[in-house]
């Protein structure tokens, strides 16, 4: 049905979305905990910055990343960490861009879930003999399962749908940085509407399936849902 190139692009998309989601879960867990459970000066500004990808045109983010991660940009050292001259037009660059772009979609559900935890539950767990790390795994995590599921699905689906950022910093190297949404755009540009239709249908179906799964699951647990 799909051409080999399209399968490859879809594979890159899914790989990118999976990696981004995993990284975001690890990054956002402490960040969301800190934002939800502490009150510190400058917090509102920090939250505004972290929420920027929600409203900023993706191309703006992509543009700054392209400049920033380039060899002469202030983030040029990041490329050296990965032993490359520049992160523009590389998969690593795409991952960094996606992490920033999808961050609010993972951060917000986690933050909501952490805010909803009653601090007396944590106190009681401490009296019951649980150390902080133990409390996180035995109390916070199970009570925030819904929040984590929402975060994972939204982070994954949103990364799958990204276009502007990818176009700016990823270019379109087959098997490396050409993701499904960009491949679709190229089909349209080339006037190949049949391929475009097929790929669009696959992306539509996949996105719908993910969101349907999320909402179905949340309906079954009506009190504990945590959508952003």
């Amino acid at each position, binding site marked *: 049905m799909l051409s080999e190139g399209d399968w490859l692009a879809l594979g890159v998309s899914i790989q990118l979305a999976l990696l981004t989601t995993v990284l975001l879960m690890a990054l956002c867990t402490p960040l969301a905990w800190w934002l939800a459970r502490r009150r510190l000066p400058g917090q509102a500004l920090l939250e505004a910055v972290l929420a920027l990808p929600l409203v900023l045109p993706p191309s703006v983010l992509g543009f700054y990343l392209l400049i920033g991660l380039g060899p002469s940009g202030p983030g040029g050292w990041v490329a050296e960490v990965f032993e490359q001259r520049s992160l523009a037009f590389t998969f690593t660059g795409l991952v960094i861009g996606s992490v920033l772009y999808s961050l609010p979609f993972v951060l917000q559900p986690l933050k909501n879930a952490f805010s909803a935890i009653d601090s*007396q539950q944590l*106190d009681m767990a401490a*009296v019951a003999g649980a150390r902080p790390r133990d409390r996180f795994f035995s109390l916070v995590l199970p*009570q925030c399962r819904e929040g984590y599921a929402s975060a994972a699905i939204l982070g994954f689906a949103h990364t799958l749908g990204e276009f502007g950022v990818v176009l700016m910093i990823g270019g379109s190297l087959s098997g490396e940085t050409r993701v499904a949404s960009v491949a679709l755009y190229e089909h349209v540009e080339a006037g190949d509407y049949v391929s475009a239709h097929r790929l669009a249908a696959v992306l539509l179906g996949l996105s719908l399936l993910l969101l349907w799964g999320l909402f179905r699951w949340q309906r079954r647990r009506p009190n504990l849902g945590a959508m952003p």
Partner: protein
Amino acid sequence: MSLELSVQGQRGSFRLQVEATLKPQGVTVLFGPSGAGKSSLLRMVAGLDHCDGVISFADQTWLSADVELAPWQRPIGMLFQQPTLFRHLTVQGNLDYVARRRQSPAGQQAQVIEQTGIGPLLARRVEGLSGGESQRVALARALLGAPQLLLLDEPLSALDEAHKGELLDLIAMAARSVPVLYVTHNMDELLRLSDQVWLMERGRIIAQGPASQELSRLDGSLAQRADATALLAGLVADYAREDHLQGITVGDATLWLPVEQPLVAGESVRLRIAARDVSLCLSAPGDSSILNILPARVIGLREVGPGQCLVQLALAGQCILARISGRSARQLSLFPGADVYAQIKAVALV
């Protein structure tokens, strides 16, 4: 195994500063108005809130200049106002959570489940439990792992009357094997449970001592209250079957109180006598409907409020209070050492 406290800490608008020693047995009631700092002090003892100073328990230092044990390192069990059961677990899961982490001795769980009567609830999710059931499970959970000190923060405040008595009995039972520090501002709970009392006001403990002594101290804040009440220790004596009256001996005197079922003779009981239920006469009235009229001696008098006088009396070696009008006190010419008869209108078991 006594708890020694010498702590200071800032609590919002006031400074909490407490020096106190907890008796190693029975229930010590930490009593005072709302906002006095009672719960804060309890949280400091648990290690949930930071404070400065020294806390030692038995031969263990919980807090000092260079030691601060975390809550999970202190051998405590705790109840909050709300049951605070772990909501993602079943009742059994809640018990296991503590048992596993606090190294509950083998067989203890079965015993605690039996004591608290929560056997039928074990498989239930905690969301479906009633308030009374939840707090019983919370108590069972607090008893697991053999805590050496129970910290109870107004555990009855979220319960209805019917369930309060049930939980009080369970707490009294638990207190036979482990010392309890019990926070409340409720006089009934104080009378029902306390062996010792710590009176707390504005972040300080202003008096500490045996409950019966603190309750009947003329200069104490408990005696100044409208519901001032004395506690007497007594022994169950004869039962007058035809009158449904139970005799209780207090020293060399006998008090009678109406009961539906006779009590076990020889058992020790506690009686409560409210100051406003005691009136005084200079000679024994031969024609009174009041059952309990006993000779007593005035220890002291104190004016409380406009036109009201509080009289402290020695009765069969123990202390009770009478709240009478200032005019009556003058007309009877009461003075410390005067012999009187106390007419006790109501006396109840606690």
